[in-house]
């Protein structure tokens, strides 16, 4: 990663046992991996920014691997995902869009049956800014039991000339899911939606 300056990684996993109702047999898991990296375009307007996507690809792969290892789960059981990015104050929202391809494909590369588009959120913000990252089912985006979001952030990041990139993976439906709609058992079309 010649042009990539990594300052830190934060990896977190939640095991959710119940949400004040009957506890499911298996706890739900939600995990996220965050990387804080230098923004090569901070403080100036650069027209051609797309080459940086190539530099982000190996980072995405490493983050996906870190996250799968932290979840400690067979990748086939990881069934929800999302991605996000916070760009520091000296950058622009357009820089955030560079994360779409490398972030999304790094997870789809590792997770079987990941046909659905990876939902995402982005913003410009300072250290401690919180970002809500949407989560959907990896095979069929309309599966209602897996719609969720995960809030992430780091107290010391991103500095003005940095970016905070994020990947989120989840295992299992929302605890006590009971709002109907398309269920995992009803996935048929295999078009990434239904």
């Amino acid at each position, binding site marked *: 990663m010649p042009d990539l300056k990594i*300052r*830190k990684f*934060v*990896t977190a996993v939640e095991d959710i*046992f119940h949400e004040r109702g009957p506890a499911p047999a298996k706890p739900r898991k939600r995990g996220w991996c965050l990387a804080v990296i230098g923004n090569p375009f901070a403080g100036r307007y650069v027209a051609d920014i797309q080459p940086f996507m190539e530099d982000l690809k190996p980072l995405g792969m490493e983050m996906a691997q870190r996250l799968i290892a932290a979840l400690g789960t067979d990748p086939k059981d990881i069934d929800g995902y999302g991605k996000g990015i916070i760009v520091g104050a000296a950058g622009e929202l357009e820089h955030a869009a560079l994360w779409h391809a490398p972030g999304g494909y790094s997870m789809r590369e590792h997770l079987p049956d990941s046909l659905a588009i990876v939902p995402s959120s982005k913003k410009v913000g300072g250290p401690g800014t919180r970002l809500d990252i949407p989560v959907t089912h990896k095979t069929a985006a309309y599966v209602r039991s897996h719609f969720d979001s995960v*809030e992430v952030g780091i107290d010391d990041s991103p500095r003005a000339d940095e970016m905070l990139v994020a990947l989120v993976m989840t295992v299992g439906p929302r605890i006590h899911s009971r709002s109907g709609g398309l269920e995992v058992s009803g996935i048929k079309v295999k078009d990434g939606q239904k």
Partner: protein
Amino acid sequence: MKANIRKIMVVIDEVHSEQGQTVSPPTRRAAAVAVIANPFAGKFVADLSELMDIGEELGGLLGEKAVAALGVAPSQIESYGKAALVGENGELEHAAAILHPKLGKPLRAAVEKGAALVPSSKKRGGMGTPLDIPLGHKDAAFVRSHFDGMEVRINDAPRADEILVAVAVTDSGRPLPRVGGLQKHEVKGEDGLR
């Protein structure tokens, strides 16, 4: 299981560079955080021994989870800390009952030794409140390079009748320490101070 645990979050923070300087090996901190029901929410109860027992249980559980997250032997843990955040229908004294009487012994077992006081903080607050866990060297409180703090927060906890209990450990001190004082290689580790 004495505690009614709704969820557990484990987070690892790994610093690879700071102010343009490479941090090698990376400094690493891990925190394990449990969200538990407060059995005494909304009422005054004189005898807090139930919370003391919960503290004993969580000292071992969270200590082991945090050490496991770093993937090192217990003897390689260098610093530690603990904290509790009580939801609005509880008392600060509930945090004290969890943290002080019984949590330390199983935590020290999880990190092998631990001659020094486990630094702590406590507060009351609502969901998403940041909790800063103080960190100090586990065998010698005067080791200046290891004074630190780790912020944790969970957007959906604590609810009014819950308590968030956190343990943090590191296998390193701050990145780029250079303010002098007692060095870790000078530690005798007998009196907890030096």
